[in-house]
């Protein structure tokens, strides 16, 4: 099944989640905080968008999850990238770079 052509916003969120998980596995809040960190606080992903996205991406096979212990010593669900997820990150990044380049060029043109 080819990767679904996600619309821009959903694509952005997916890309950010994939990017957030490249270095380490994180639980839901960890993903949210990591995204805030790497985007310099520009994106504050709320639970209402975050969890549906995480579950959707897990079903798509990009993420895998396991139950681990959080920093507050509580059982929490951690997510990490799968091989397919890494591939998806790669293609999505390229696509995004193409788009942003095109946008930048378009906006610079007077």
């Amino acid at each position, binding site marked *: 099944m080819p990767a679904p052509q996600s619309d821009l916003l959903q694509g952005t969120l997916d890309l950010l989640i994939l990017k957030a998980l490249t270095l380490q596995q994180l639980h839901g809040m960890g993903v949210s905080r990591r995204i805030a960190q790497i985007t310099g606080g520009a994106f504050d992903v709320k*639970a209402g968008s975050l969890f549906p996205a995480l579950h959707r991406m897990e079903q798509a096979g990009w993420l895998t999850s396991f139950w681990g212990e959080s920093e507050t010593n509580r059982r929490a669900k951690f997510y990490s990238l799968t091989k397919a997820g890494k591939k998806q990150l790669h293609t999505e990044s390229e696509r995004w770079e193409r788009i942003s380049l095109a946008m930048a060029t378009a906006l610079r043109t007077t």
Partner: protein
Amino acid sequence: MISRLRALWNNVFHRKQLDRDLDEELQAYVELVSAEKVQAGADPEEAHRDARREMGGEHQVIQHVRDVRAGVWLDRLVQDVQYGVRTLAKNPAFTLVAMATLAIGIGANTAMFSLLDQVVLRLLPVSHPERLVIVRETGNHYGNSYGANTISWPMFEDLRDNNQVFSGMFSRFPATVTIGHGDRVAQIPAELVSGSYFPILGVGAALGRTIAPEDDAVPDSRPVVVLSYSFWRSYFDGDRTVVGRTITLNSQAMTVIGVAQPGFDGVELGVPAKVFVPIMMKTEMTPHSDGLKDRRRRLSWVTAYGRLKPGVSLEQAQLSLQPLMHSILQMEVQQPEFTRSTTVADRQLFLRNRVELLPGSENGLREYMRKPLWLLVALTAAVLLLASANLANLLLARATAREREFAVRLAIGAGRARIVRQLLLESLLLAGAGAVLGLALAFLADRILLRIYLPADAEFVVSPIPDGRVLAFVMGVMLLTSLVFGLLPAVRSSRTEITLSLKDRSGALSAGGISLRRMLVGIQVALSLLLLVGAGLFVRTLRNLESLGPGFPTDHLLAFTIDPSLNGYSDEETKSFYERLNVNLQTMPGVTSVGFSSMPLLKGYAWQNAVLGKDFEGAPIEEQPVLSEVGPDYFATLGIPIVAGRAFTAQDVGPAQYAVINETFAREYFPGRNPIGQRFGLVDDMEPVSPDTEVIGVIPDRKYRDLRETPPPQAYFPYFEGTHFRFMNVYLRTQADPRQIEDELRERMRQFDPHVPVVGLETMNEQIGFSLRTERLVASLSAVFGGLATLIAVIGLYGVMAYAVMRRTREIGIRMALGALRSNVIVMVMREVFLLIGAGLAAGIALALALADLIRSQIYGLSARDPLTFIGSAIVLTVAAGLAGFIPALRASGVDPTTALRQE
């Protein structure tokens, strides 16, 4: 893909666990967020509250997550189904009526389809039946023929050895043989097959082996036989030691070499073969005709089959066989037996004959049943369409009643698509229930039909049990019907105006698509007129055929067939057998007269031959007279008078040759002359003949082949004058009910000769009844469907009018308050009723007139546009529907103005 499937699996089967996990995940999130806040210095309790608030409603998050789960549509579907079932259960009267209507509609269609499929549509149970073709020659073959699809043995050999398009060819010939196994003597259908028959069909053996090419290489060399599986089970009780044993066929010892695979009964559907014998044994199996060694090419007797090579289409094969056929014809046209019996014009015509390829599963029964069965399927389809229209009507009425429910659902945010889906689902639930009931109904109907339709000893197997194809058909019909009756109401309902519907509207019912509903009733009236007209035409056809009869008295007439030649009796022995039998039967108590005939009456068979005389010579087959050889008392026994000259007597034996002809023969061949004393002869391709058969008597025109025919020219010859003696049709005129002496006759025949079986003993009326079975089937079923259709249409009309009157209660109240009389109100309502009926009738009549040509061949003795039938049907329908409309009219006239006006 796999991860998706696993997710779907989990979502469906581990939902509880998933929900628990999600809950815990979210709790952890809230805790982590609040812990973060506490670390930043917030009060723990406040932090927790803030964290929860920031999440923005736990339930919404849960719902959003559930919405992205794979298979969420399944969840919704289950919800919708539950809701649909609840809604339907809340209104049991509606649900029951709808289900019953659908069950009848779908059931009738399924029953007919099941028959059509098994008799007409299904291919032979052999490997790749679609690659199998029958090879036939079109046009007049100028010679003797065993049927339309037969060719001569030498032509089969030429085609087999010289074609480029078949991977193989085989031929077959159906024969009746006498099997003698102990004292159980019986006549059974056999198939004489060429050695390539089983290999090319790809039919194997359940036991032992099948006939191989080497069994069929040299004439008369291999007396072997293969049994059909069903015959092995019924006649030999499935005895496995039968292989290798010797059985007697036509007094010839034959070795059983195997049993064919189950379900294979030869290539002719209507006459399942019991035994298969190499065609090289033809002489032994058909003692009196030896087509195999007859190198003349004028005797057509084998049916040739070919298996198309891969990649070759039927059309390509047909095209590429033409030059081969033409060269064969050019050779044949120069043979002396051809030139002797034909003119130059005949020869030119003959050279235009072509090869035609038919689908290999084609056969006589199919040909015969195709039109009637398609007709019945069309009738049932019309009934189902009508039932669907009625149901659409009911659903529209229900949708009006449910407007408020839809408005509420729309107001709280249900999409219009979801409402359409919900309603379609309810339709599908109804149709599904109807289909299940219909399937059961179809099974019962088919069982009853088969019992009526097939004779008790019928070998031809049609099963009422639905198979995969029938189930697929039911599924298709179910989906289609639910769309037909469900889509319109569903789409209408989704357009519900929220504000209008939610306002308090006591008393005033909305228009509820009343014009749409009127149109649906109009369609129902039109369709039921169509079905009534059909029923009228078919019932009258049957009555015509029954009352006209064959032209001679059929009561007290008993018939059977017998063939001592199949027991190895010589011509002399057979002749003596018949002469003694004649005397024996004449002395039987209760029998007044005995008639013998070589050809059976009213069974569709005919012996035709060209005749020549002083000033006429030859004729194409359609114009050739129908002939028979009869015993001395034949005409007297059948009650056919002699209008001129005399009948045969026992003294009419050689050297002079005599004939009795019918009036049509006299008119066509001896116009304006006294036929008595005229002479004619039968054209023979073996030797030149001179016209020296003298006409000694004339009989009136009587039907010969079947009840539908216009009597053809007929000529009869004295039976015992001949030199070859084969099967005989014996007719007995009895004093009392012939069925009373059937048992006695059987016993008498057993004593007369225990080795010769009596075949097809039945009264003439039974035989005629059987020959009209298709007409009876069509007439009775179309009458049932017509009645059913009228009933449904009348109920539909009643429903719409009752609703229309209810909607206008207030208006009627006002009218009456202003002084309208009860009769005024009745007239007002009835005007609408008759407008509806009139429109429906007009459409129905137009439709029936347009379709009349399609059924012309099924009609006998009246026109397919018979005005009496049309007018009669219209009157029946008008009266029935008018009565149904009168009830609401009467109710309207009883409206009490004060009550009606107070409703608001």
